[in-house]
């Protein structure tokens, strides 16, 4: 068990980071090359102001007409994303690991905050799951893969939460915690979760297309 844990937090973790970052770089480079050849429309109408506006309006809570049409869902999905990023990055236990591995660490949030935020993320996750199940326009689009990815996204949070509270078999939970997080990171560059970075590009494009060319607000 210990050996497994050591492997997962050692070589496997390094491999994960390499695949995660390398994968994103490869996907972006590939798309860049392809766009140079086939998507002139992207470059012809480039305009930073419109690109940035298009991105910002979708980062600010209720910054777009679409989010305002569905205020509750938008609120949940923003909180969900904030939690997804903040908890793993600013958890003090992770910061200790960062420090040990790289000699640098980020600002840490208090454990109580992290604990609360984890619960919020889980609650949001459940909300999103239920929404997928009950809203016909979402259910019709949903594939098994969407449930899998949602489950996989929540697993590190559930296991981390249980382990922190020492509920259940701690060692198993920790192994599952690290493993699921690694699988998730590895998947990001190759799945729809790539929106983590591609969001900025597709938003910028629609900003150019609707805004720079026509002055229309894509938000």
């Amino acid at each position, binding site marked *: 068990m210990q050996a497994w844990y050591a492997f997962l937090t050692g070589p496997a973790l390094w491999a994960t980071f390499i695949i995660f970052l390398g994968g994103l770089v490869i996907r972006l480079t590939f*798309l*860049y090359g*392809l*766009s140079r*050849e*086939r*998507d*002139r*429309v*992207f470059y*012809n*109408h480039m305009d930073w102001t419109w690109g940035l506006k*298009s991105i910002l309006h*979708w980062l600010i809570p209720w910054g*777009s*007409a*679409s989010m305002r*049409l*569905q205020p509750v*869902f938008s609120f949940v*999905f923003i909180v969900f994303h904030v939690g997804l990023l903040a908890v793993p990055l600013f958890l003090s236990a992770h910061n200790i690991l960062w420090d040990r591995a790289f000699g640098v660490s980020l600002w840490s949030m208090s454990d109580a905050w992290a604990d609360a935020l984890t619960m919020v993320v889980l609650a949001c996750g459940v909300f999103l799951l239920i929404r997928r199940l009950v*809203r*016909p*326009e*979402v*259910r*019709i*689009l*949903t*594939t098994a893969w*969407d449930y899998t990815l949602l489950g996989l996204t929540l697993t590190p949070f559930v296991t981390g939460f249980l382990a922190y509270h020492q509920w259940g078999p701690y060692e198993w939970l920790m192994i599952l915690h690290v493993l699921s997080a690694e699988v998730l990171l590895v998947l990001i560059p190759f*799945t*729809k979760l*790539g*929106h983590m970075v*591609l*969001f900025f*590009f*597709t*938003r910028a*494009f*629609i*900003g150019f*297309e*609707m805004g720079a*060319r*026509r*002055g*229309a*607000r*894509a*938000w």
Partner: protein
Amino acid sequence: MQKNDGDTRPVDVKKIRELLDANNGARIRTWLSLCSRCGLCAESCFFYLAHNRNPKLSPAYKFKATLGELYKRKGHVDREFLHRCADIVWGECTTCKRCSMYCPFGIDVATLIAATRTILYSQGITPEGLARTVVNYRETGNQMGMSSEDFVDTCEWMAEESQDEIKGVTIPIDKHGAKYMYTVNPREPMFYPQDLAMMAKILTVAEEDWTMPSTGWDCTNLPMFAGDRALAGQVVRNMYEKALELGVQAILITECGHAYRSALFEGPYLAGYPDGKPPVPVVHSVQLFYEYIRDGRITIDPAKKIKEPVTYQDPCNVSRNGGLWEEGRKLVRFLAEDFRDMNPNRDHNHCCGGGGGYIPMGPEYKARRMASGRVKAEQIRATGAKIVIAPCHNCFDQVSDLNKEYQLGVKVMSFKEILCELMVVPEKFRPEVSEEDEGES
């Protein structure tokens, strides 16, 4: 309704794969792989709203079930499937681009739908109404198959007719070096020649330097909606090249929405101009009319300003996809005292349901067009307006049909018509004969 009645032609998988591959650029690839299936776009589509929020009408479902599926199956599909796709991409989407503003990733569903149309077209599938126009474009360069002579004759006839009202009206044909080359929708010379007369009167009173070309005068582009990209490029190139040949300063587009979209935004790409810009500037009538009144080249008789409540139909391809929503509104305010906006409006307005080729798709699609137009009908009714101004031929027809179907009790008008009624005709343009009429008013 697109049905597979007896269509047993084999599917050319190789061709489909070629087109799938040609379309597989960074944008389409990213959009298809990024869609989170969140369903946010559903609310933005009037087809979805008009049909009791039928989930199959959400934009994401429409591209997923068509282009998405074609990629997934790598083109290995049967006729059955292709006809189902046709039903979606022509019957359930007008490529109005509204949904791209409501998707967190800005996925441009209209582009995905248009790509699907080209694939279907390559397999000989396209609504008959559009297929008919394609033949005409190919043979005569315009969608209604009108000959150059007939066109020029109509122009002359209309110029003559107009001289009774405005002295010295002419429709100059192929005049080199004019400021504007005015291009129209063929339904004007074919069925509503008065539209040509009205425009000639306005341009005469504004003392404009303009011309109409004897070829390349059709600014519409239905092959763009039929899925024939090559021909769509040719159609717009005819117009550009004529403008270059005549050495005009700009192409002036009639009150037509998709013509403007074609000439200014999609045309350069269809015709293969690498910088995405038309070789000659393109100006829409709404813009020009607005400038005329703003700059005092046309004066509106204050006593004739419309008193009845007026609303403005933002044609998607003039407003959201053309950028002219403010000009349109200011123009309406010049002409009418009681302007009532629809809600939503401007760049976020709903399509009327007649776009994307829907009107020319003809009577077999009419019932569906009326059903999906419910959203627009309700928008109009809610304003309480008695007049709807629609600076787009397709919107004009659709709103007119909706008016009957939903008993809206409105009158649909174009800017041309109103301008002609309201503009002050300066002394020098008043024909001698009509002096007694002047005395009455």
